[in-house]
């Protein structure tokens, strides 16, 4: 794709602020559900819950007009027991499906050590895992900045 085609493809997506707000809402809902329904410990937020950088190799020409963001939930201290892992994944998947995420794919699956990955149409990846601690994060796909999308054309 040339620069213009990359811009057009990204303009079909929510801008990065909208995307972040939606994903943050999803993470917050899942965190609360896990605490309420599975009794895991309260989440310890990270020092920097939101980080961003330039878009990756699929959108190399977008430069300052695009961004990907990494949203971390920090961790919930302790392991989510094996016998409840499948139910927890079901809960996460059902909640994430509402925002367009697909089925979970197993990343790690062994005793007291599990992780699944869920992806959406924009290239975002939700990672949910548990080992010494339980973790939950989303890396977004590439989205235009609010200003770039409002401009209506590449810079």
């Amino acid at each position, binding site marked *: 794709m040339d620069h213009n085609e990359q811009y057009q493809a990204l303009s079909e997506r929510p801008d990065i602020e909208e995307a972040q707000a939606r994903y943050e809402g999803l993470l917050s809902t899942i965190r609360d559900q896990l605490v309420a329904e599975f009794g895991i410990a309260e989440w310890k937020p990270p020092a920097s819950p939101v980080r961003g*950088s330039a878009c990756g190799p699929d959108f190399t020409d977008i430069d300052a007009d695009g961004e990907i963001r990494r949203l971390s939930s920090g961790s919930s201290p302790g392991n989510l027991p094996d016998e409840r892992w499948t139910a927890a994944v079901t809960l996460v998947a059902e909640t994430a499906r509402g925002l367009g995420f697909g089925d979970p794919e197993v990343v790690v*699956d062994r005793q007291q050590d599990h992780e699944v990955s869920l992806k959406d149409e924009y290239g975002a990846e939700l*990672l949910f895992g548990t080992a010494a601690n339980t973790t939950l994060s989303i890396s977004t796909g590439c989205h235009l900045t609010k200003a770039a999308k409002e401009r209506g054309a590449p810079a």
Partner: protein
Amino acid sequence: MPTYGDIRKWQPAPLEATVTGLNQRCDELVGLSDELTASGVPEGWTGEAADGARAERDRLQNSMELLVAAAAAVRRGVAEASDAVEALKHSVAETDSIAERNHFVIREDGSVVDNAPVTAHDPAHIDEYFRERQRVQQELADRVEQAVRRGTDIDSDLAGVLRAAEKGEINDGGATSLQDALNAGAGQGGLSTIGPPEDGSPYDNAGWWDSLSEAEQQAIIDEHPEWIGNLDGVPGEARDEANRARLETERAALEARRDELQADLDDNWFGGTFTSADAELDAVNAKLDSLDAIEETLARPGERQLLLLDMSDERAEAAIANGNIDTADHVAVFTPGLTSTVDGSMGGYDNSMAQLQFRTEEELARYGDGGSVATVTWIGYQAPQLSVGGVLFDSNSVLSDGSAQRGADSLAPFLNGIDASRDTDPNLTALGHSYGSTTTGLALQQNTGVDSAVFFGSPGLGTNDVDNINVPTGNAHYIEARNDAVGDLGYFGIDPSHMDGMNHVSAGETTLPDGRTLTESTGHSAYMDDSSTSQYNLSVVVGGMPDRVVTDDGKGFGDILSWPVPGTY
């Protein structure tokens, strides 16, 4: 000149008490102002006697103004000396603490003596032991040197103020009131700001910075950001603040030069045919583009530090950290190779480093203690470029290790400076790709304090022997992807795939013991692809979990061709 032992005994408290006393005296003196004005010449009193009384009162007023000015100068000098001694006391305590923790003794004359208990050392690691002892001893000697330099400066400055006051050399600046005299005197009592050591090592620089009060440090950031922006050994937060402040000045200077060159070209009938103006204009424009790339990167969400900003060479140089190198538990410094430029490469490499930081931190959160990570993209050298002229004629040609040698001489102190600027060293990893691995390999042949290294896609490390890479035994790693011809060149030393003692780690598709499937990286430029085995290996080394690396001792076809002939290296 005070000795280190003298400075150890210095206390700010007596100076503070002196300031309190001087505050009181100054207040009392200034309080006499109205009384002095009203006294001596009652209203309506005229004649010779009245004139005499008025002259006497004026003489007294002038004397008082000079006295107040001198008191104010001394008060300011002592107050600033008190702050400086407080900062120096902390610096000395830190130096003594480093010495104690590492079993060194610093004598009163400042000499540093190794006082480590006599214990048996593994002969296989004896070089590492002595290298580390030498590094700490050098750090202590440099810190002592800077403490004495700073102490001498405080002593000399304060003595100068006191001497001037005693000799009546503090003037009142033509004051007509005691308050004006107070202000004029205070202006003459300030202590000088001591600049960084000339050609100082990172430990010298760290010792100098630590010896300054917070107010002095902030004044330097505000007034002399060029002193510290690129000064290895100064904490990342201070360098970042200074370098961000320099961005505007650098841009203005480049824009002025661009306009000048453009005007020259416009005025010349032959354009740039017979001058180098057009080539310089291209270089200036590339530097302006580099500033854009830096500012774009710094504007992204999350903490970043601009640790290097240098426009003095042919191409811009810069280093940007994701995270905070002053506080992170794990710090990695990545040096890219051929064709790397700030304007063309910073955004992409910063993205790879941001993803590496994210993956490492998530891994640490899930499996470990949730340690924090900072990853630095270091483009602090003139990486070779691929133009015909650049390959054949440039002093930074990829065919020569000249650029890597010069880069290594900048990278080594940068790495050392990260440890030097902190009270506790982080787990420090050097990452080098392609020609950047040659630069990194050469840098690590110096004593940098780096804990681990990962080289990938390397044309050679500037040595044939892994023992010359000064990281603890077993902590040097090499990744070579399938179909990476650069990795088989063995041009700057043998192909690292054949180095005995090197940890050969995988870039191939892998299923980890935990079931995770990671993708293969092929060719020369896919080592940091997300979810690849190669990226995973980088992350576990950076995160201090080297037992998790996926090893790969297999050799590809290219490795067979690059197998060095025994006895020839």
